[in-house]
Structure formats: structure tokens, C-alpha cells
């Protein structure tokens, strides 16, 4: 992928906030991290923070230059308030739409939210091949939009973002 072309043609505002139930993985670390130059790469999840072996694995797989970490929602909001994300190319990955709403309620001012991967489950309906949503996810995303957040679906930088509004 031509990095300069990508940077010229798309205006990306940081920090990027993504919902992905694969957490930190190939698409995120290689697909986004390496092509856009993400730093820091943060998994923001109270659940995973408590799951020490998983959190440790996720910290290990992120290349050093991306400064990977696993932090709680509160910590992410704190870092925002301290101004830690100013002038960074940060990406925050959340496991669920509910976590995104909780992060907003904690005072994290989100401009847009990318749905990067929510995979099939029995209670979820297909919206895109990589986006399946439960009724609860749906209601939560509506709530997030009411907070003034633009919600898009996009798995990789090279694919076109699809506005969530048009899908329902």
C-alpha cells in the first residue's frame, strides 16, 4: 500500500476508535498499525485487563514501535483528560459497542467510531460480512449517535467506510 497516497487522500482524525471482537490482531496491527503508522495501539477493556494471560499476550504481539498496551476504560478517559493523545496517532480498540458508550460517558469526547469487526453469534443479525449486531448492540449504537458520534463500518484502511446510519 502506498502510504503517502493514503495520507494525502484520506483525512484521518486521531485518536481512532474501533470496535473489534478479535481485539488486537492482524487487521489491526498490520492492516492499520503498519500502514497508517499507529502509536500507541491500545486495547481498552476492563474485562481483558483482568484476564492477565490474555492481556500479556496482546501486549507482546504489538510491534515495539506501536507501543501496545491494554488499559481500562477509566484509564483511557484519564489519559484523554491529561492530554496524552495530543499529537499522537493513537488507536483505541474496544471489544463491544457498550464499552464505546461507557467510554463516552466517562468523558472521552469521541468524534467518530469505526465498527471494524463484530462477528456472527446466534443473537446477532448480519449487516455486513464482518458486522453482525444484536438488538442490544443496535440500541447502544443509536445511543452513541445521539451523543453526536459518527458511526462507520470499515475493516481495513483501503476499504471504503460505510455509514452505519444507512444500514439499518
Amino acid at each position, binding site marked *: 500500500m502506498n502510504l503517502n497516497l493514503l495520507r494525502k487522500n484520506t483525512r484521518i482524525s486521531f485518536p481512532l476508535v474501533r470496535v473489534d471482537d*478479535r*481485539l*488486537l*490482531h492482524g487487521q489491526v496491527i*498490520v492492516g492499520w498499525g503498519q500502514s497508517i503508522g499507529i502509536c500507541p495501539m491500545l486495547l481498552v477493556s476492563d474485562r481483558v485487563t483482568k484476564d492477565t494471560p490474555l492481556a500479556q499476550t496482546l501486549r507482546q*504481539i504489538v510491534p515495539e514501535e506501536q507501543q501496545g498496551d491494554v488499559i481500562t476504560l477509566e484509564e483511557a478517559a484519564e489519559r484523554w483528560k491529561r492530554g496524552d493523545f495530543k499529537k499522537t496517532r493513537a488507536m483505541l480498540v474496544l471489544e463491544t459497542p457498550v464499552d464505546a458508550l461507557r467510554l463516552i460517558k466517562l468523558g472521552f469526547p469521541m468524534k467518530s467510531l469505526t465498527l471494524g469487526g463484530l*462477528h*456472527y*453469534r446466534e443473537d446477532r443479525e448480519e449487516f455486513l460480512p464482518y458486522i453482525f449486531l444484536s438488538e442490544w448492540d443496535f440500541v447502544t449504537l443509536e445511543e452513541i449517535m445521539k451523543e453526536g458520534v459518527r458511526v462507520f463500518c470499515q475493516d481495513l484502511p483501503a476499504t471504503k467506510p460505510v455509514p452505519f446510519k444507512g444500514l439499518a
Partner: protein
Amino acid sequence: MVRALILTHAQLGAELLRSVEKVIGPQSDVAVLSNDGQSLEQIVSGVESRLNDSPSVIFVDFCGGSPYVACKTLHSAHPSCAIISGVNFPMLISFFSKREKLQFSDLIEVVKADGLRGIQIISE
């Protein structure tokens, strides 16, 4: 017999096995899994359902992908399995031809070495 599980993105694992079998014939005690359309949790339970107490080697495509993360989180509960990332053709040929001849600990080292030895550059 040491069992093999090949876990990759898309159909890489299935096609790798199909290609290897073209060279050394049909293999038993091997399963193939893809992460297509699955969350991390679903990949973990898919792998878990295919593991038992017998020694097995899980081949995953690359260090950092969801197949790798899924297997690594399972590893402590299944000490009889080894995970090798960066699966390639020579590695699998080596594994299937040597799994009955070597001790498990030697086998995984030899398989890795053969995988590396299979990478050669032809250049000016």
C-alpha cells in the same frame, strides 16, 4: 501419533494441507481450522474442541494474528501441545514425515529448523 491442527486466516490451512498431500499422500490425525467470520472467543472455543490430552502441534499462520492469540491463551491449559507460528510448506512436509520417528521435543525443533531451511533466496 502426534496430531496436527492447522489454524489460519481464510483457506490457507486447507490449501496448504491439500498441497502437502499432493507430495506425500493423504495424512491422518490432522484438522484444519480457519478464523473466517469468528470473534477471538469463537476461535478459542473452536481450537479447544479439537484438543485432547494427546500431544499435538498447532500450526498458525503468523505471530500476532487472531489464530496465534487464540492458541497462546489456551496453551497453559494444554501443556501437551506446542504452537508453531509462520507455518509453511517445508515445515508441514517435515512434520508429517517425521512425527512417528522423533520424540515430541525433538520433533518441534526439527520441524522449525526444516521450515527455516526451506526459505532460500535465488538472486544475482
